[in-house]
Every structure is written in structure tokens, then in C-alpha cells.
């Protein structure tokens, strides 16, 4: 091979670069534990699921349970509330989702009770759609927990859950 007129990097240049690179990797490796310690810890992750007895929840009633440090609403919906939720046209929704996509059994609506705007806990049986209304900035949800009015961008989230029996539901 012909030796070009281009100045070839010296061994010293290579050592400088290599040292710098190792130093940078070391800094990142050291920074990560300092940052990651703020993420949810093992004891928080361990509280991943709860079981709830639903037999005592009367029709029309909303039970608020605590799951992963925050509220989950378990709503025993009345016939009228189910009808309202099912008959809402998707075109009227900001975050379109059918009621069937949001429930496993029509009479039970289970949603995370945290407003998708800025995290306040909405009040049940309030607002124009008789679902929830958030006291902070006035977001209104319907009987399927879908956002209908106000600044919240999304429907109330549906957590992972399964009915273990007719009266027992496992959330998480």
C-alpha cells in the first residue's frame, strides 16, 4: 500500500482517544445507578396485584380501592348506565373506544381513578354524563370512564384485571 500524504494518527493520539472513551463509559456507568435509584424500587414493584371482594358493591355503587399507591374505581353499573355507555356513538368521543373494549362484564367497570390530565382523583356520579368529574380542572368522564369534556386527553385507564370468581376480582 502506498503511504498517503495524510498525517497518520500517532500511537499517542490513539491512547488519548481510547482513554477518553473509557472515561466516558465509566462516567455513564457511574451515573446510571445515581439516576436509577429514583425509579420505583423492589418493594413498590412487589405490590403489583390485589384481590377485591365485589359481593358487597350494590348496583349503582362505586368502590374505590388502593392499588399501587393510587385509586382504582370498581363501578357496579346500572342498566341505564350500561345503555348510555354502549349507545354513545364513537364520533362523540375524544379518545374513541367502544364500551365493550373497556369492560369484561358489562355490569362491572374497573378503571384507574386518576384523571388523565394532571392526576387528580375524579368524583363519581358527577358531571353531565353521570360518570365522573374531576375537581381540579373540570374534565368530565362518562359511565364507561371515557373523556367527554375538559382538558384531559385520554379515557380513564383500564388496569389489567381478571375475575377469579363471580365475586372476586384480581387487579394487576
Amino acid at each position: 500500500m502506498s503511504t498517503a500524504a495524510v498525517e497518520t494518527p500517532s500511537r499517542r493520539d490513539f491512547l488519548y482517544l481510547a482513554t477518553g472513551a473509557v472515561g466516558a463509559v465509566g462516567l455513564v456507568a457511574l451515573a446510571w445507578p445515581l439516576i436509577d435509584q429514583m425509579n420505583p424500587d423492589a418493594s413498590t414493584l412487589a405490590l403489583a396485584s390485589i384481590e377485591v371482594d365485589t359481593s358487597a358493591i350494590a348496583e349503582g355503587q362505586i368502590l374505590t380501592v388502593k392499588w399501587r399507591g393510587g385509586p382504582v374505581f370498581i363501578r357496579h353499573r346500572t342498566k341505564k348506565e350500561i345503555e348510555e355507555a354502549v349507545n354513545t356513538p364513537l364520533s362523540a368521543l375524544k379518545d374513541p373506544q367502544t364500551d365493550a373494549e373497556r369492560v369484561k362484564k358489562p355490569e362491572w367497570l374497573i378503571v384507574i381513578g386518576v384523571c388523565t390530565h394532571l392526576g387528580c382523583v375524579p368524583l363519581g356520579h358527577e358531571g353531565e354524563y353521570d360518570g365522573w368529574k374531576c375537581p381540579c380542572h373540570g374534565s368530565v368522564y362518562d359511565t364507561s370512564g371515557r373523556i367527554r369534556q375538559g382538558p384531559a386527553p385520554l379515557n380513564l385507564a383500564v388496569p389489567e384485571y381478571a375475575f377469579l370468581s363471580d365475586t372476586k376480582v384480581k387487579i394487576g
Partner: protein
Amino acid sequence: MSGTSTYVPKSALARWFEARLPIMGLMHSSFIVYPVPRNLNYLWTFGAILSFMLIAQIITGVILAMHYVASAATAFASVEHIMRDVNYGWLIRYLHTNGASFFFLAVYIHMFRGIYYGSYKAPREVLWILGVIIYLLMMATAFMGYVLPWGSMSFAGATVITNLFTAIPLVGTSVAHWLWGGYAVGDPTLKRFFSLHYLLPFMIVGVVVLHVWALHVVGQNNPDGVDVKNVERDTVIFTPYATIKDIFAFSVFLILYAWFVFFIPNYLLDADNSNIANPLVTPAHIVPEWYLLPFYAILRAIPNKLIGVVALFAAIVLLAFLPWLDTSPVRSGKYRPLFKFFFWIFVVCCVGLGYLGSQEVSDGTTLVARILSAGYFGFLVIVLPLLGLIEKTKPIPATIADAVLSKSAPVLAKTGAAS
């Protein structure tokens, strides 16, 4: 910080020390013989008042930390313990909570003074930006301090503010979980907020040192906005003139502060915060502390979550760009008739937004909040750049001494005529 020091050590020990660490000379040139424009009014005393408030907050805060226990299980009870059991605990806590409010009152007067007299203009841009950084740090500190008593309003405030970050596309939720150390505001959140609430005031001290340093490099602005041309004619020395004036103004400020602490200590606090935090219930009417209300009103005025959050942060960050948004070559609002008019409209917008932020949302309040938000941003990004181009300013005095003497001249003439 200001030219050559004229400090002469008096004793042999002082001479020995000064040769090794010239800190006495620095103090002497910065706070004794430092030249102060002779036309400063009482609005220029708020820098000193703010320094006193920062020290007062740190002293009361360090004491409170001796008795406060940062954990979700004990925080609320430990604050009650401070109020009921600790000797003078009630006094120290009321000094600290009301101190935050008076700190902000002073900083708002300080900032509006800076805007009115064009104190951010060249060569004081860095001085101004350091001030905006201090203001941001103050807001972060005050917010985290408000969470510590772990009342229901503390919890709601922590939830709403940290949820602002969920508006960030894609990574928002992960960022929020990282901030919380869980899936909602909880015990880990409280503990890290306490740690940071203790740390940030010392960072504020650091930036304040830079702020004062920058001030002493470029010199103080003054109500007429003209530079010091002749130190002999245009200035007086810091001590006793500025020192005594600052102490007098601070004493008056202290009277107001003490009146709140001793007679209406809970006036600025929210009754809901006397209930312990409950993650399953949000208080019916959540309101931030008064000093954050204008930004809260801007957030609520905008129906879209992401745009609302962006507007809230923009309302603060835009302040840092004032030196370049204001295109007028004339510093002081005193000589800018149009600016003066729009400045007061801007003040009305800020105060109006503050009022609306404290009210419950209705269609009416939302509409007015939108108009006032438009006024707030309009002043910063439309009015200020345009005014520099179209405004016909009044003639500015050639020197500070001229400005002062022209004011007193008619008085002299009048007394002369009477005698």
C-alpha cells in the same frame, strides 16, 4: 468586585491576613465604598430585603429539619408535633411558611421593578438571567416545601405538578414514575422532596453570589436608566447611604411580615392542608399557593394538556429572553410613555390571572383567563419588540446628577421665591 480596593488594614494581624486572603478588602469595596447611583428609590431596597429573607428561610428551615420526620407515615404528625410540643415550634414554622410568601412578594416587586426600569438591558443581561434562574429555583424549592407537611393539599399539589411531566410525548409516564419512585405520589416522593428542599436553598445562595457579583461588575441600574458618568457627581457610597436605606425598608417590610406571623399566620395557608394526605381523595377545590396562581390560571385557560403545560413553562422561560425581546434603546420606563401604559396592563394581566387561578373554573373565568393570558404573552412577544420601533420616547437626562438636580431645582426656586 468593584475596581481597586481602598481598604487599609488597621492592625498588624489584619495586614497579615489581608496579604493572604483579601476578603476584608473585598467586603470593603463591595459593601462600604461601593458607589451607588444617588437617584435610587425605595424599589432598589428589595435586593437587600431578599437577601435577608433567604437567610431567614435557611435558618428557620434548618431548625424545622431538626424536628420534622420525612416519611408518609410520620410527616403530618411531626408537623403537628412542631406546632404543639416543640418550644416555639409554632413561631418557627409560621416564620418559615409565611416567610416563603414574603420572599415571593419581595421577588415579584424586585422583578416588576426590573422590567419597569429596563434593568435587564445591556450590559445587565447575564445579571437578569441569573435572576430568572434564582426565581425558578425558588419556585421549585417552595413547591417541594409545600409538599412536606403531607396534608391533602400538599398531596394534590405534588400530584398536579409532577403530572405536568406526563404531558411529554412518549417518555412522559416513565419520567413521572421516576420522579415519584412509584406509580403515584407516595412515601419515596416525599423523602426525595425533603432532600431536595434542603439542597436547593444552598444552590440559590450560590446563584445569588453570582447575581451580586454580576451586579457589582456592571453596576446598578437606576430610575433614570442613564449610566454613571462621573462617580463624584452621580453616586454616593454604599455605607451609610444604601445600608441605612435598606435597613429602614427592611424594617417596614418586617412589620408586615411579623403582622402576618403573629396575627394572621394561617391567612395564606389552605384549611384543606390541615387534613392528612389521602391518595384516594382529591380536595374539592384545589388551589396552589398564591405566588404560583398566575401560571396555574394560564395552564387552566388552555383546553389542550400538552399546549397548556408548554404555555405554563413558556410564561416563565420567556422572562429570560426579555433583554432581547425589548428592542428599545431607552432603559427606563420613566421616559417611555407607551411602554409605561402597556407595563401597567401587563401588571393587571398578572394580578388578574392570579385572581382567576384562585377561583373555580366556569365558562366566564376561562374566557377572561384566555384574554389575560393573551395579554401576558402579547406584552412579552409582540408589544415589547414593536415598541422599540414605533415609540417616541421622552428626552433622557444626560447624567444622573442632572436628573436629580432638575427635580430639586424647582423646589429650590419655590422656597427662594417665598423667602
